[in-house]
Each structure stands twice: as structure tokens, then as C-alpha cells.
């Protein structure tokens, strides 16, 4: 029997949402008063959040109503695709990073969701797979983007050391190992750290949502723990896959560093 069976529901009226815009007005006012020059961005952010979340809300409602696993898989595939496109824009220094990122997100999503279903933690229904899938893929995207961003910087900084190691007859993998290790670490560290402080410094979103929806604190905490651990799994799979596939793109098959920018001739 699945552990997390939540059947609470509350109704939010449109006027309540509209009333919360008062706080957006406050944020804009602060920005205007202190000349932070963020009023326009706050406006755009608010408009986008209304449009995007409303659209997603309808999409999710459609999927819930249809109650078929295929639509869920299509939605998750779209999330993986857009996640990889977004992450690529943050990993500009990595050559051909799209394919590694796409595989990383697909593998992270597939493995973690498959595992939580196989272990009987969640039922394979849209109600669970859609929100959990969104969190898993979103976190996997952030982790792989951070890892590849770091990889790009480190490969540029460590170019001389990596080539000197290749000159000893090391393989590309051996020469890049310290760089790959540090990139993987930086992709994973944020979630590990926030998991350490969870509950002390901030209340994670799922728990807040469940408490607001009227669930018992015990259930809220248990579900939150499950999600945190699921995310740890997904983040490590995506950061590992992305770095292990992407570092190869810096090398030729003959274990040479690719020329990415103009190297300077030795100064006299």
C-alpha cells in the first residue's frame, strides 16, 4: 500500500489570488522607492507566472481527467526536452552540451520515477507522477546545468595542466578526472547542503503545501522526506551523466584537447 495517500483538498477563489497581488504592488513600490529598477521585471515576472501556471494548471487538469499514463509520459518528455534546452544555455563553454544534458535528464527522470514506483512508494498515476516528475526533472536540470557550467570553466582554467597530463600518455578520462570530480561535486552540493538545513532554516515547498492543504504534519514531513531523497537520487544521476558524457567533447579521439579558442604562441 503506497505510503503517501493524500486526499485533502482546499478551494482557492480567484479573489484570493487577486488580493495577493497587493504584495506584488508592495514589491514594485519598494523597487521604485529605492530605485532598484526592478519594477518592469516584477511586472513581467507576475504576468508570466499567471500565464504559465494557468496553462500548466489546465494541462495538468487535462492529464488528470484523461487518467492515462501515456499523456504523463508525453508531458515528462516535454519537460526533459525544455529542461535540456534551458540547461544548455547555462553551459555555453561546453561544446555540444545538448545531447549529454538530454540524456542526463531523461535518465535521471526515468530512473528515479521508475524506482519510486517499483518500490511501491507512489502509485503510477498522473496524480503522483506529474508533480513528482516535475520536481525531479527540474532539480536534475539545475544540477546538470551547474555541473556543466563548472566543467566549462574548469576545462578552460586547467587547460595547461590537462595537456601536460595528456603529454604523459594519460587518457582523456585520466587527464580530466580531477576536473570531472569537481564539476560533479558542484552539481550535487547545493541540494546536499539544503537537505542538511531543511526544516531549520526553511520549510520545503511540499511540506508547506501539504500543511496549507490541511494534511497532518506527520504526513507532510514523511512526504517531504521521500521527495528530498528522490531528488538526491535524481540530482546525482543527472550531474554524473552530464559530466561523464560532456567532458569527452573537449577531446579528439586521439586524446588531444580540441582547439576551442585561439591559443597564444609562447611568449618570448
Amino acid at each position, binding site marked *: 500500500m503506497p505510503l503517501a495517500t493524500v486526499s485533502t483538498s482546499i478551494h482557492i477563489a480567484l479573489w484570493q489570488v487577486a488580493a495577493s497581488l497587493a504584495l506584488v504592488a508592495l514589491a514594485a513600490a519598494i523597487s521604485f522607492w529605492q530605485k532598484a529598477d526592478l519594477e518592469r521585471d516584477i511586472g513581467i515576472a507576475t504576468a508570466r507566472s499567471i500565464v504559465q501556471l494557468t496553462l500548466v494548471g489546465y494541462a495538468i487538469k487535462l492529464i488528470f481527467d484523461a487518467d492515462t499514463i501515456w499523456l504523463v509520459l508525453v508531458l515528462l518528455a516535454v519537460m526533459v526536452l525544455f529542461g535540456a534546452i534551458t540547461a544548455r544555455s547555462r553551459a555555453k563553454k561546453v561544446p555540444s552540451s545538448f545531447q549529454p544534458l538530454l540524456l542526463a535528464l531523461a535518465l535521471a527522470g526515468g530512473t528515479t520515477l521508475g524506482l519510486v514506483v517499483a518500490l511501491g512508494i507512489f502509485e503510477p498515476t498522473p496524480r503522483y507522477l506529474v508533480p513528482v516528475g516535475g520536481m525531479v526533472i527540474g532539480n536534475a536540470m539545475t544540477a546538470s546545468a551547474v555541473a556543466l557550467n563548472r566543467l566549462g570553466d574548469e576545462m578552460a582554467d586547467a587547460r595547461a*595542466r590537462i*595537456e601536460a*597530463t595528456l*603529454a604523459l600518455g594519460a587518457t582523456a578520462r585520466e587527464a580530466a578526472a*580531477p576536473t570531472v570530480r569537481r564539476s560533479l561535486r558542484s552539481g550535487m552540493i547545493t541540494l546536499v547542503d539544503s537537505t542538511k538545513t531543511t526544516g531549520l532554516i526553511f520549510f520545503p515547498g511540499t511540506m508547506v503545501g501539504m500543511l496549507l492543504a490541511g494534511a497532518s504534519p506527520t504526513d507532510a514531513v514523511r512526504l517531504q522526506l521521500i521527495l528530498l531523497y528522490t531528488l538526491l537520487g535524481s540530482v546525482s544521476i543527472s550531474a554524473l551523466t552530464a559530466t561523464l558524457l560532456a567532458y569527452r567533447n573537449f577531446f579528439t579521439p*586521439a586524446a588531444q584537447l580540441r*582547439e576551442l579558442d585561439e591559443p597564444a604562441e*609562447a611568449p618570448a
Partner: protein
Amino acid sequence: MLFELRDVGLDRGGPTVLDSLSAGIPEGATAIVGPSGAGKSTLLRLLNRLAEPDRGEIAYRGEPLRDYEPLALRREVGLVPQLPALLEGTVESNLRYAAELASEPLELEQTLEHAGLDASFAERDVKKLSVGEQQRAMLARALAQRPRVLLLDEPTSALDHAARDTIEAALRELRSELEISTVLVSHDPEQARRLSDWVLRLEGGRLAGCGPLAEVLA
């Protein structure tokens, strides 16, 4: 001939860096000289396949360089880059790493000595070495692989006179004691005179002279 260059050319996404070079490099001590930007370092990197020429062919001991497995070739033809780039750790861990890659037993003290370092350097953290000491540790690391040929890219350019003399003395000993052939890149004709018997002179990516020291640097 140790290396033979036939019509070697290389462009780096635009300007020509090396232009139809044909020359031979015999066993022994060779220097590649020329002004900054002449393509010396680029040529050196071609010799152990850290880069490939766009045109032409290079042969090593009569066989096309492309037919050699690059990793095995680099253990036989070592390269010491212009600026030291050691791995984190101690001098010894760097030497051990190199020796293991080449499946060679490490004779630590002897290897250090060949590079002009005494045994006390083995335990030193590479971060705490001066640039001159790091450069000698780079040389020792290359020697730990027992290469047959050493490619040296301006090994003394970052050093003061005293450190330069130590490295030069070490290089001369290598040749007489270990019978390693060396190809030295230098912008300094005087250094070439001190350390080589055969000279390639490059200017603007083209060969401006190739032959015995006395002929090319008369």
C-alpha cells in the same frame, strides 16, 4: 632520422601557423629556434601528437606518426611544456603517476637527481615550490617515464640565470648519461648553441634554416 617532416602545414581556423615545412631531425640534441610567433611550440606539439597537422606528414623513426598509438607514443616521446603544470600533491606523487602510466619502475632519487633536484624534494608539496623547482619537477616527471626522446618547450623561459644554468646542466647530463634525444624550443640562439648540435630555424611558420649548428647559427 628521428623525425622527418614532409610538407607539414597547419592553420588554426584562419592564419597559417606552419607553412609547408620539410625538414629532418636526427637523433641527438636539436634546437628549434626563431622569434616569438614563428610556430615553434606548435611544431613541438605535433611531434608527440598533442595536435595534428592539417597538411603533410611527419614520420618518427621511419613510420608515419599517425600509425603510432598516441598514448604509447607520448610515453616514448615525452614533452615538457613551457609553464610547469604539475598535478596536485607532492613531487613524488607526480613522478609516481607518470611512472605508472608508462609501466616503468620508479627510481625516485636517481630521477630527481637527473633533473637537478635532491632527494628532499620528493615529499615537497608542488604548491610550495618555486617556478624553477616546479620546472625541474616537470623534467623529473617526464624522465620517470624513461622516454627515448624529450621535447622541451622553452624550459628556462620563466627562470632566472641561476635556475636556468641548473636546468641546462641537467639537460646536458641527460644526453651523456641516459642517451635521450632532445628537441628544444628556444627563442634564444645562445641557448641553442649551448645545448644542441642540430638546428631548425623558423620564421613566420616557414623553415628559414635546417642543419648542423655551425651552419645554421653561424
